[in-house]
């Protein structure tokens, strides 16, 4: 679920977020990134070409709805995979699709419940309040409760596979990526997409996560209403609060921002360590911020939930352990286990990987090694940017053409990149040590 206010994101912030994400988590996640860098890191004529292509491709895709758009957006999320020109274009995409017409919304309700929305709710706003990539959100009221009703575009589920088949060759050609590079990623995206179209699944997940994380302080989860939900309609509480940009425009105090950042950090730590299940879409549109009780975060949209297998969880946590960074041989062992380094690698290549990964890990894992961490620290951001640029420039790295590491790291990576960028925008100081 994303908000229209995103449209007004200052360009500098978008650019910042994009640059930030470019760095990514290099922890075992040089999965697809190499290729993107090959694509992006080229000289300027290519960059111009990308920009022209992006505008053209975007023009085509923006007229479509549903899964094509969603694929584009997911590719945009994984900015490392996509030249920046495309990423920026696709980011806009979800705000420019025409909304579902009133009669179609009515039809969706009649299909699901046999009644029109005005019969089901005491009040139902025919105009959508927000657009989401595979649906839109309406405001409704029943029994004195404010409700958010998500309605899915028709035919999204049915068309995902054909849409992906359609978008794939275009993506491959225009982005200059290889088929085998994109294949595992596309497969993962397709699986997630199909899940996202299943509102019943989202409902049960939303309820489950809310039950498991309800005890965490300063977090708020909507109650879902199964009787008012179906495969294409999802009804939940309308949470109070504003999206990031609007909220920050009201200049909340540092204490409030810290508390919000802390709530987010604890939420993700708890999910990764205890639940092994992640709300894997830390998009700014999926959180609502309010001043309630000194800062409360509302969590929306459980369409994209990633289960992390125990092995990958252990590897990921071990990599972030301070002791790992201090001990090169331990790091090496871990990377071999994770499949990033291979026994057959020539010594020079192995050294190159180790050097790069140590560098990334030092920087990206830094918040995990300290008691508290200031995400608003400009110096930290600067060094992240610098690292991103260094990696881009690295000739040896750019010559590596095969993906390495587990596919699960793709989503772990995406989740933490998203989280870091949220915290950075909040400028929060966070106690990063896990209290368990």
């Amino acid at each position: 679920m994303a908000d229209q206010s995103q449209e007004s994101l200052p360009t500098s912030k978008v650019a910042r977020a994009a640059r930030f994400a470019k760095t990514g988590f290099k922890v075992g996640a040089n999965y697809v990134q190499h290729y993107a860098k090959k694509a992006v890191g080229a000289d300027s004529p290519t960059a111009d070409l990308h920009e022209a292509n992006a505008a053209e491709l975007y023009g085509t895709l923006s007229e479509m709805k549903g899964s094509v758009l969603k694929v584009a957006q997911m590719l945009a999320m994984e900015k490392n995979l996509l030249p920046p020109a495309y990423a920026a274009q696709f980011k806009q995409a979800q705000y420019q699709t025409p909304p579902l017409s009133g009669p179609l919304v009515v039809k969706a309700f009649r299909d699901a419940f046999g009644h029109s929305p005005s019969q089901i709710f005491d009040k139902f706003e025919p105009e959508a309040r927000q657009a989401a990539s595979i649906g839109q959100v309406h405001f409704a009221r029943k029994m004195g409760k404010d409700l958010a009703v998500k309605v899915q575009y028709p035919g999204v589920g049915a068309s995902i596979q054909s849409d992906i088949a359609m978008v794939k060759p275009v993506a491959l050609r225009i982005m200059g990526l290889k088929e085998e590079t994109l294949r595992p990623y596309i497969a993962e995206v397709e699986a997630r997409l199909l899940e996202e179209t299943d509102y019943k699944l989202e409902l049960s997940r939303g309820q489950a996560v809310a039950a498991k994380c309800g005890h965490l302080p300063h977090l708020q989860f909507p109650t879902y209403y199964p009787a008012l939900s179906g495969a294409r309609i999802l009804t939940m509480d309308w949470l109070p609060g504003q999206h990031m940009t609007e909220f920050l425009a009201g200049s909340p105090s540092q204490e409030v921002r810290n508390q919000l950042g802390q709530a987010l950090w604890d939420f993700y730590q708890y999910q990764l360590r205890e639940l092994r299940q992640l709300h894997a879409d830390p998009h700014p549109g999926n959180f609502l911020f309010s001043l309630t009780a000194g800062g409360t975060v509302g969590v929306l949209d459980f369409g994209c939930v990633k289960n992390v297998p125990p092995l990958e969880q252990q590897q990921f946590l071990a990599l972030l352990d301070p002791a790992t960074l201090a001990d090169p041989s331990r790091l090496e062992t871990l990377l071999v286990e994770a499949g990033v380094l291979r026994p057959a690698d020539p010594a020079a290549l192995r050294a190159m990987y180790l050097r790069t990964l140590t560098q990334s890990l030092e920087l990206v894992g830094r918040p995990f090694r300290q008691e508290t961490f200031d995400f608003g620290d400009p110096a930290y951001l600067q060094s992240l940017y610098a690292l991103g640029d260094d990696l881009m420039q690295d000739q040896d790295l750019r010559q590596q053409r095969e993906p390495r590491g587990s596919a699960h790291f793709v989503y772990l990576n995406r989740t933490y990149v998203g989280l870091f960028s949220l915290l950075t925008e909040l400028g929060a100081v966070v106690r990063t040590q896990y209290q368990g």
Partner: protein
Amino acid sequence: MEPTLLKPAYLDYLRRHGRAPKTVFAFADAQGITEGEFYRHYASFAVIDREAWVDFGREARTQAAEEPAWQGYGAREKLLAFYYTLLEILKNNRSFVLLTLGRSQKRKPALIPKVLGNFEDEFKEFVQEILQEGRATGEVASRPFLQDGYGRIFLRQLQFILLYFVRDESANFERTDAAVEKAVTLSFDLVGRNTFDSALDFGRFLLQKRA
């Protein structure tokens, strides 16, 4: 026997057997009436087919207008609401739809059979009403002479949607819903004030200058 009972009996036969009764006599006999009595109400089975379609159209209009939100709808939304309601009715009668439309499909796929004749006439009237309303609110551009042809454009749209529905194989015919949404948006972009009107206005201005 009342014609109100004759029609459902015939439609039921048609749906069960996948074809019309062999003869009017056989059908009338099964209903316990004489062949002559049948002709007092209908000249042939084809007449009942046509009437069934007219009924669908009227029912769709009535049902759509019963929706509380109807009063607040503009012209575009009224047409959409009509289509969606119609499709809902057709979904419940899909066997009949396939039989009456599908038969002509094999020979000339894009041809709409005669069975839709009266249904289409009433649809055209409905569209004229809606467009009239749309012109009053400014949703539809007023274009003398040209706008007389709009009825035909919307008729083609209706035919397109019906054919799409006949061929649609997606679950719950969701693709047809999407097709309706897009087709109606396009048509109202065309009949609304757009580039064409500005071009016409510009052309008129140039001509006046010469005179």
